[in-house]
């Protein structure tokens, strides 16, 4: 379980997260939605321990970061490192062996090519493969579906389901509502650094409609398309 109490984060005078309180249980998938700039990535970085913050993030582990697989929105790759070496790096950093890498390369990535030459989707799939091979207990996935092809989308959805079965804690952000609908147990709406709404599975449809109404409103009419 991850418990977050009074979490706040500011960049200079800009307050990005404001006194956030939320908890995430094992064996559940949590979706975090919100507009661009609402604080999702900062929130994820705080959970992972990649950002300094005020407040408290506690868990069942001594050091949460050592049990967390963090998939970044735009994973960074060194310019001359192959996919296989990247996986080796992430595994060895956690004291794990990268075993059966080829067999576990379910996205059929060209592992002996430089990762920096991969497409956006391939980079994402490589980073996901690497954090899965680290065998983590918590997964923080920042837009895992972003840029990946439709087949991989289906695979990622199934991976998330499998992780849930394995009693892992999974937190995802996505701008594609359908993917959250397929995977999440709860969706939390983040707005200007505050969680304004928690929605359970049975109310996902209502949330989607509300978001559509709020987001679109009469904006399309304002375009005056003819």
């Amino acid at each position: 379980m991850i418990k977050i109490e009074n979490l706040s984060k500011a960049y200079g005078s800009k307050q990005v997260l404001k006194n956030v309180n939320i908890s995430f249980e094992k064996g559940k998938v949590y979706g975090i939605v919100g507009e661009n700039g609402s604080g999702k990535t900062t929130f994820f970085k705080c959970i992972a321990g990649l950002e300094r913050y005020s407040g408290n993030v506690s868990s069942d582990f001594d050091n949460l970061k050592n049990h967390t697989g963090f998939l970044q929105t735009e994973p960074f790759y060194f310019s001359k490192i192959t996919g296989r070496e990247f996986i080796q790096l992430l595994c060895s950093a956690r004291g794990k062996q990268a075993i059966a890498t080829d067999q576990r390369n379910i996205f059929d990535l060209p592992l002996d090519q430089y990762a920096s030459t991969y497409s956006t989707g391939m980079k994402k799939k490589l980073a996901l493969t690497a954090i899965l091979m680290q065998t983590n207990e918590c997964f923080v996935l920042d837009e895992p579906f972003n840029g990946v092809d439709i087949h991989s989308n289906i695979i990622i959805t199934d991976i998330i389901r499998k992780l849930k079965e394995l009693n892992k804690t999974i937190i995802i952000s996505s701008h594609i509502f359908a993917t959250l609908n397929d995977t999440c147990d709860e969706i939390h709406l983040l707005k200007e650094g505050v969680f304004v709404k928690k929605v359970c599975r049975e109310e996902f449809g209502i949330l989607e409609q509300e978001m559509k109404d709020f987001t679109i409103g009469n904006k399309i009419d304002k375009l005056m398309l003819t």
Partner: protein
Amino acid sequence: MRYYFRLQYKMLNRHISDFGLHPLIGYGISIAGFTVLSFYLFSKTEFADYVYIAIAISMILKLCENKRNGFLKNCFSSDIYYSLRFSENCIVILPFVIFLIYMQSFTPLLILLLSASLLAFINLSNQFQFTIPTPFFKRPFEFITGFRKTFYFIIIAYILAIISVSVGNFNLGIFSLMLVFLTSFSYYTEPEAEYFIWIYNLSPGRFLLNKIRTGILYSTFMCLPIIVTIGVFFFDKINIVFGFQALGYVFLTTVILAKYSAYPGKINIPQTALIALCLYLPAFLIGIIPYFYLQSIKRLKEYLE
């Protein structure tokens, strides 16, 4: 085209300023450093001309990158693009050209000018580039990425070691050994993204130890052919070889610690000044290594604990 070069000049100034220097001072140091190193190289070996050309061409090759030139082609018309690329290459080799003229090395000068002109028309494509094999797979990432970017320096060092044996110049052999170490130091000059420290399940102390161990292990691996070559042919001076090797390890450790003492920033003026001081008076290492170590621990705690 004028705006492009003005922009490049601005960007260069910003890089120097980021390093903590006034651009004018930066240019002064660069010119002085280049001159001193050039004289040193030419005093050490009669093949300095060719080492010089190799260094200059390796710098031009960096401008032949496909993505970069694709962008330039997209921005400028074909005529402007080629004259721009030619001008860029000329600017990069200018210091080398001036020094070669001063040394009256006209054949290497001609080779260099021809290479610079030809390379203005060449793009190194990423599409067909093959993965350069490295023996450093087990412990990513510094030596893997560094070796692939600088393998030609290692080749040059090995060639210099062979030349040192064939002409009986022990100092050149030691220079080749130091060249390998200098190349290894360069692998630690750029700070990695925070994520690549965060992923480690290690305390800051263990993390540093791990990095130093890997650095020493892999630098030994790269130095071994040189040690064996000059060790066999200058067996009476083997102690000096081991002495320089040990000094290399100490400086490698210092550079690694300096890198993390400045993290997440780049190695800056204070670190560079302290390392330079140690190069001049190595006894200072006794104080500077623990200082860098403690600073590194402080910086790494943020990401590892």
